[in-house]
């Protein structure tokens, strides 16, 4: 059977034009997807059943047992952490928030190690952005800053920006100027009309220089800023000011390098400055397929996009204190539930090491590095493959992920609802 217009759940692009061929129980072919999409749908190896660590190694246990024990671990904990959420659908995220509220836990999502700094910057100065279709149909200047979409978001350029045919940009490749800012050459810089190579940690200075030039203060700029010649900066400022519609996309090269959220703030303020000359927008390139959805769901339920601490009864937010990495690094947390993410692979060593010291439960379709640190791993459906649900694209557009096959696994929302019921019983989420 061939299903059309399938949504790829892997990255924040949520491309929704895939064609998936199944033979009932298996996916046999993926069309239109990038290599990451193909791997997502085709290399989908899962545990057959929940497993628990024993002195002698792993043992298989029933779902009931795994769920009971997880509920027990959470009930016993003084400072539980519920982390992850970005590769599953909104219903699961919503139940996660209700569990956190019920037991006074900290709940955090993967923004904490990716675009958390972007959120802090937005909370200071706002976010002038738009949906990706605005860029596709209008933009004649595209800037990729501190990111490598060719490898990380392979279809971003062909679906939404550089190579996409837009209503006002019918000959995309000829009509769009692409500027790439990075510290090194990548496959993305190879496509650039202007490659701006800056020294490590130089983003803030370069953004400040561009702001000054756009403001008409080019005379205060030295001959070179963080390795970038003044002439190039002046030229880029001119390209931006003369654009009909300019769009900046940025990645972890900006958020996680020296300056962190101040870099992003500076980039937003450059966008603001350019908006006084022409149309300009800026957007983070979000990684996990539904990380933006976890921000959205957390926000309408608790008021905050990530790092929410319910220990006081109310929702409390203080990134740096209530963020997962910090709770773990301080050794504060005494139990962890990890859903739809892999902190074992991308948290700092001290934080990951603490996960191994405490009872950690993983609910995830796939075995990953966190499994090795955990006490229990409960396999479940993968949103967008064998479970349907809502995901939010990197620009905020809500899309319904489809279920293309049935593999007989329980939905992670179902598992969490059972955990919730064991913890409370009274009030349905």
């Amino acid at each position: 059977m061939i299903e059309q217009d399938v949504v790829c759940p892997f990255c924040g692009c949520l491309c929704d034009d895939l064609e998936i061929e199944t033979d009932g129980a298996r996916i046999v072919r993926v069309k239109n997807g990038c290599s990451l999409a193909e791997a997502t749908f085709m290399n989908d190896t899962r545990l057959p059943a929940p497993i628990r660590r024993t002195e002698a190694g792993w043992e298989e246990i029933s779902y009931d047992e795994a769920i009971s024990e997880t509920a027990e671990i959470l009930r016993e904990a003084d400072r539980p952490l519920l982390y992850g959420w970005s590769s599953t659908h909104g219903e699961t995220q919503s139940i996660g928030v209700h569990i956190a509220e019920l037991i006074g836990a900290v709940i955090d999502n993967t923004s904490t190690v990716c675009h958390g700094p972007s959120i802090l910057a937005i909370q200071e100065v706002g976010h002038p952005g738009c949906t990706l279709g605005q860029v596709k149909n209008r933009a004649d200047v595209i800037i990729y800053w501190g990111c490598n979409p060719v490898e990380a978001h392979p279809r971003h350029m062909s679906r939404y920006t550089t190579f996409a045919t837009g209503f006002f940009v019918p000959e995309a490749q000829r009509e769009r100027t692409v500027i790439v800012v990075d510290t090194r050459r990548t496959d993305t810089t190879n496509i650039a009309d202007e490659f701006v190579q800056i020294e490590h940690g130089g983003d803030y200075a370069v953004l400040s220089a561009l702001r000054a030039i756009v403001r008409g203060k080019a005379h205060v700029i030295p001959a070179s800023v963080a390795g970038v010649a003044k002439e190039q900066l002046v030229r880029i400022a001119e390209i931006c000011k003369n654009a009909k519609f300019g769009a900046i996309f940025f990645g972890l090269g900006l958020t996680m390098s020296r300056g962190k959220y101040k870099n992003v703030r500076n980039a937003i303020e450059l966008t603001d400055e350019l908006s006084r000359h022409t149309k300009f927008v800026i957007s983070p390139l979000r990684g996990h397929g539904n990380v933006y959805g976890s921000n959205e769901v957390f926000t309408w339920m608790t008021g905050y996009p990530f790092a929410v601490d319910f220990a006081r009864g109310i929702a409390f937010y203080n990134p740096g204190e209530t963020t997962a990495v910090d709770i773990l690094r301080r050794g504060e947390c005494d139990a962890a539930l990890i859903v739809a993410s892999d902190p074992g692979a991308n948290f700092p060593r001290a934080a990951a090491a603490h996960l191994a010291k405490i009872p950690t439960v993983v609910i995830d379709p796939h075995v990953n590095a966190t499994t090795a640190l955990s006490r229990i791993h409960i396999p479940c459906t993968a949103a967008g493959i064998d479970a349907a649900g809502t995901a939010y694209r990197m620009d905020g557009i809500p899309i319904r992920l489809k279920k293309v096959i049935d593999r007989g696994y329980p939905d992670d929302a179902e598992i969490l609802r059972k955990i919730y019921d064991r913890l409370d019983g009274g009030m349905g989420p």
Partner: protein
Amino acid sequence: MTELWVKNACVIDPIRGINGEIMDIAIRDGRIVESVSDRADVIDAHRCLTLPGGIDSHTHVSGTKVNFGRYMSPEDMRAGRTKRRGKMHVTSGYYVPTTFGNSYRYSAMGYTTLLEGAMAPLEARHTHEEFTATPHQDMLANTLFDGNWAVMDAVREHDVRKAAAVVAWTLNAARGYAIKLTNPGGTEAWGWGDDLTSIHEQVPHFAVTPAEIITTLIQANELLRLPHSVHLHCNNLGKPGNYQTTLDTFELVPDLNPARQSLYATHVQFHAYGGGTWRNICSKAEEITRSINSKPQIVMDMGQIMFCRTMTMTADGPMEFNLHCLHHNKWSNHDVELETGSGIIPVTYSKKSAVNCIMWAIGLELALLTKSPWQCLLETDNPNGAPFVKYPEIIGLLMSKRYRDEECATLHAETEKRTSLWALERELDWHEIAVMTRAGQAKALGIASQGKGHLGIGAEADIAIYPIRTDMVDPAREYRKVVEGFQKTRYTIKRGRVVSRDGEIIVDGANATFWVNAKVPEDIRMENDKEFIRRFEQFYTVRMSNYPVQDLYLPRGRCIETEAML
């Protein structure tokens, strides 16, 4: 079968012409009936003021931009927070509360139905997800068409039928309720960083004017027999001198529907400014209300501002950018491909600002100068003018000249010279307030026939019982009691269940979402229109098949079907 008997209620039910009668209300299975058995639960209202559940016909509580208002404002989330308690979830926020915060606080004030003021169809799924998490009010969504490419193409081709067909398809796909135009044409221009300054200026690249968009969609709206009229946020919001644009717009409106208005003009306070700069801005409420008083085909709402810190959020992207250039605070913008725009900035309305004081006075003038309360409804464009929790204060101000005088004495000295508020003696009565907070909304939205906004036999049993004895309170003098009384009902009843008692939510919510399916003839359905499909697939960034909102996003969807006259 569940039964409830409310006895000794002092009922004001304007749609049925009841004004302060002491009577009993019988409820069975969520609806009002003639009588109930003696097994019914009994509530003794003790002759307290009993009204149909409150209806907000223009509020921003759910969806992309509201949630972004929360997202960017941890400072506001800290400003109002409550713990989980009984049936109540944790809440955060004061001027953009979390969904549960909105729902509980509206319920405590006796509100049972809300119209979300602006939903971009492309992001409709988000709005509906938040509706589900706003459990104690029935919800309806204004659906944005101000910059809709297919609509503008039809307008340019003078094809009203086609415009109607696009609207019908989109409302169905978005599970929307009504046509909303926010700065028509201006939001498309903002796609290039521009705006339109007159209703006769052409939208770049589309060769249509706001006036043409407005008049075409007013006609299309009636062809589709939609329950509500076109819901318009006029061009030039917030600009000194904009009253002329507003009057010009009102002149365009024909009287097409005997049952209700043909145009709903929202937050008109923001559109009633004279002068030409911020230095000489003045009130043109008299001119605006003179027009309204002579045009029964138009209903407006106040767009009252109150002195406080709040958040402005609208699909009117260019307006928000202009405001940002004045305030220099944080600014968010979110344009939506082929459809509309939006912007968000926080503001503080201060008594030290002459402009803010004049705005405050204009809103009240509009309400006091409009002869029929059915034509000027009470709201703040929540949270743009003020968070909705300020409504009771506005009621107090409208009912008491003394209260207004006391407030006016604290305002910027320029206010008296540039508005006529000081001279207005009118004090609204209980009946007029009931019209302006529920009956008028039900009629304007076209939901009285769905059993909303009145307490007739068969109506939905949405009822608010306030701790106010109208025979014992003189609102002109004891306005504090009025304000306090409207802040917290003794009972809010939603579909026959007591959901809130003395401000405390006591049950899980089970709201419904109303939406409209306007059926158009096969030959002009957009899903059969090859050119529409081609352009959709080429220029949107989601596939057409993935665009419509699935039914499961409306767990208690209530579809109103209409047969279009096409």
